[in-house]
């Protein structure tokens, strides 16, 4: 088999699985910052209980995130050595910065947060979860700097057979960095909010009078509504506008714009066919895409037909993943808005069916993150660094295909086990939550 395809499969697999956990970690960590703050400042036991319970969920999530994240730090070297040599002068820096400035921060303070409740002052204990949240968010910042540079490279010159750094500032603050960071971090908070809402709903279905779960559910749905809106507008919208300007091929692919035109339509729904590229059962609004992207209903937008055949991304996958992400994003606003309304009417506690919806909604923001990631990464193809290096030219020369196949099998086996165990332990933890709160309350008194 082709080592390029194999390495791409392995990368997609390992990053996809890893990327389930950091958004949950970031979202949950910020929510815990709020929970612990109230518990500390208002001195309310019910909030402290919430802190203790969800801290354990955070620990479990963080552990799987760290375990799968180690792979990512090394995989550029193992599978993409030509890429690493070509762009190492620029791409290595944000990865190293991520290590020095953020990994130490989040992992060090997570230890203090999880194990230090009775060893440090209450203020210090709160500070430690704050540092976990800050560290996790800054970590997202640096890794997204690296990814954004692949999408919209800047601040470099090609000489001596490689891309060399010309301006660190320009490389970091490249055209897509801020919008990508804001869109991703708001998405992470949506993931965390749905997670907390779903877990609280689970507890409320067991006991509608659960005072702790009532408070955490309220927090989760308010944060969830605000950030579900923010992830679409302005951050998602701005991100799309940036793609339209800096990566027109990707923009045409994700919007299903196969022929260049003025007053380009926004395709709301369609089923894409590949050969030839064509949208079936299409529902579209004339001029809306031109208006949304460029503020002018008559703006001309280049379609797929305008680009060389070997420089366009896979059309089917980018269209489908992008549109499903948008669909899910819209759904999140509806769910959270309904949750807030039901909360205000004090009906949410007993509407068992809606609580069940909240539980089953937990995986969907994660799915939306995956779809967004596929949109961004597959949409960049055939480039590994846009207009600078093709993915096919980036793989390691010395690694035989058989070894990559072997490692893919290892990852599939280990990650399937990890994923199943994570869900099993999470469900178990929540199932034992009542009993545990009782024993931890006893522990606190003793």
């Amino acid at each position, binding site marked *: 088999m082709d080592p390029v395809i194999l390495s791409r499969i392995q990368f997609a697999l390992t990053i996809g699985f890893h990327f389930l956990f950091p958004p949950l970690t970031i979202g949950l960590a910020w929510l815990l910052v709020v929970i612990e703050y109230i518990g500390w400042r208002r001195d309310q036991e019910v909030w402290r209980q919430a802190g203790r319970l969800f801290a354990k969920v955070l*620990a*479990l999530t963080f*552990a*799987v995130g*760290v*375990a799968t994240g*180690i*792979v990512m*730090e*090394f995989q550029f*070297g*193992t*599978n993409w*050595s*030509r890429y*690493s*040599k070509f762009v*190492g*002068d620029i*791409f*290595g*820096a944000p*990865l*190293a*910065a*991520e*290590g*020095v*400035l953020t*990994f*130490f*921060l989040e*992992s*060090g*303070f*997570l*230890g*203090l947060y*999880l*194990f*230090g409740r009775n*060893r*440090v002052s209450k203020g210090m204990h709160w500070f430690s979860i704050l540092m976990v949240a800050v560290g996790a968010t800054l970590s997202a910042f640096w890794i997204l700097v690296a990814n954004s540079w692949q999408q919209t490279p800047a601040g470099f010159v090609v000489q001596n057979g490689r891309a*060399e*750094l*010309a301006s660190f500032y320009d490389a970091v603050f490249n055209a897509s960095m801020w919008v990508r960071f804001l869109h991703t971090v708001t998405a992470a908070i949506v993931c965390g909010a749905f997670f907390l809402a779903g877990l609280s709903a689970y507890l409320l279905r067991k006991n509608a009078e659960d005072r702790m779960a009532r408070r955490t559910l309220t927090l989760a749905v308010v944060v969830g509504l605000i950030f579900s809106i923010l992830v679409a507008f302005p951050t998602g919208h701005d991100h799309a506008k940036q793609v339209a300007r800096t990566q027109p091929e990707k923009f045409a692919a994700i919007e299903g714009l196969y022929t260049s035109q003025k007053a380009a339509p926004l395709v709301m729904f369609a089923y894409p066919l590949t050969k030839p590229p064509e949208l079936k059962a299409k529902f579209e609004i004339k001029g809306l895409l031109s208006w949304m992207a460029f503020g002018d209903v008559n703006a001309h937008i280049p379609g797929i037909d305008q680009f060389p055949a070997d420089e366009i991304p896979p059309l089917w996958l980018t269209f489908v993943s992008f549109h499903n992400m948008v669909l899910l994003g819209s759904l999140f606003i509806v769910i959270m808005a309904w949750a807030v309304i039901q909360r205000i009417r004090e009906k949410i506690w007993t509407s068992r069916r809606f609580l069940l919806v909240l539980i089953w909604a937990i995986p969907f923001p994660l799915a939306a993150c995956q779809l967004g990631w596929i949109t961004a990464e597959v949409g960049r193809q055939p480039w590994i660094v846009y207009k600078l290096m093709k993915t096919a030219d980036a793989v*390691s*020369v*010395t690694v035989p295909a058989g*070894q990559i196949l*072997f*490692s893919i099998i*290892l990852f599939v086996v*280990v990650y399937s086990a*990890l994923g199943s*165990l994570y869900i099993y*332990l999470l469900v*178990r*933890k929540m199932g034992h939550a009542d009993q545990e709160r009782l024993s931890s309350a006893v*522990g606190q008194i003793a």
Partner: protein
Amino acid sequence: MDLNITWFLLVFVLLGGYAILDGFDLGVGVLHLFAGDEFERRVHLNAIGPVWDGNEVWLLTGGGALFAAFPVVYATVFSGFYLALMLLLMALICRAVGIEFRGKVESLRWKRFWDMVFGISSLVAALLLGVAFGNILRGIPLDEQQNYAGTFFTLLNPLALLIGILSVALFTLHGALYLVMKSEGDLHERLRKWVPGLWVAVVALYAAATATTFFVSPFLFTGLLNQPLFWVFLLLVTWGMLSIPVASAANRGGLAFIGSSSLIGGIMGLSAVSLFPRLVPALGNLANSLDIRNAASTPRTLKVMLIIALIGMPLVIIYTAYIYRAFKGKVKLGHESY
């Protein structure tokens, strides 16, 4: 000071920091396989519980620093050591989740299973790290394009395997000394009994590894005696070696642990001094070696990275020290423990 030399030092500081810090928790993992009872196992896990994750970050950051400062080394070595590195990654993954998953279900079989996972993956990680390091000291086959020219089996040579076993013994000793420091009562006495045997093994293996390296990689030893740093690190190694049994016999746990830390730091330092200015010697043809010039990033990148390191690392050291202080003293099992 020259940027390339500074980064050579910084990479070894990170790798040395990793060896000292994650070294003891890998060693605790190995000892975990031989733990007497559930109480001892919980002491093991809780002794490293708050810190192992932070310790592992030294490896991640070392990898990132290598990528940023010496991308050719990062690319060549990691792709060349592909299978070995994948196994190391699997071991590190299993280890991380083993620690976290173990205490989550109250079932003896469940716990024993994750004990085995944690112990074996720690052992495998310690072994593979040593084998990888041994191969760097021996030199690896490199072609003129700076690509790896060997196979997986090239890595399984006697010197590398010897250094692999040395690293298992060394980390286990280091882990034992850490646990001695963190435990009390019967367990403390039981753990102390590990120290003399492990110490003898480390001394013997270290002597054998040094002698073998002298014959396999004579280039590491040329001009060494004229390097002032060589004498500094030799002193550290010697002091570490000698202080461990003395401090241990006097039941000075902290001092013995400092001894094994300086032993590991000294060994990493000696390796760095011997390799300098090469990072990866080319086996058979030293002209193809990767060194601090031909494998490095541009001065601009090295400078930017140095600024980031100078801002970040002092902070890291300050709060890491603070966190270790918060958990200093004997392990007390409580409600939040594993």
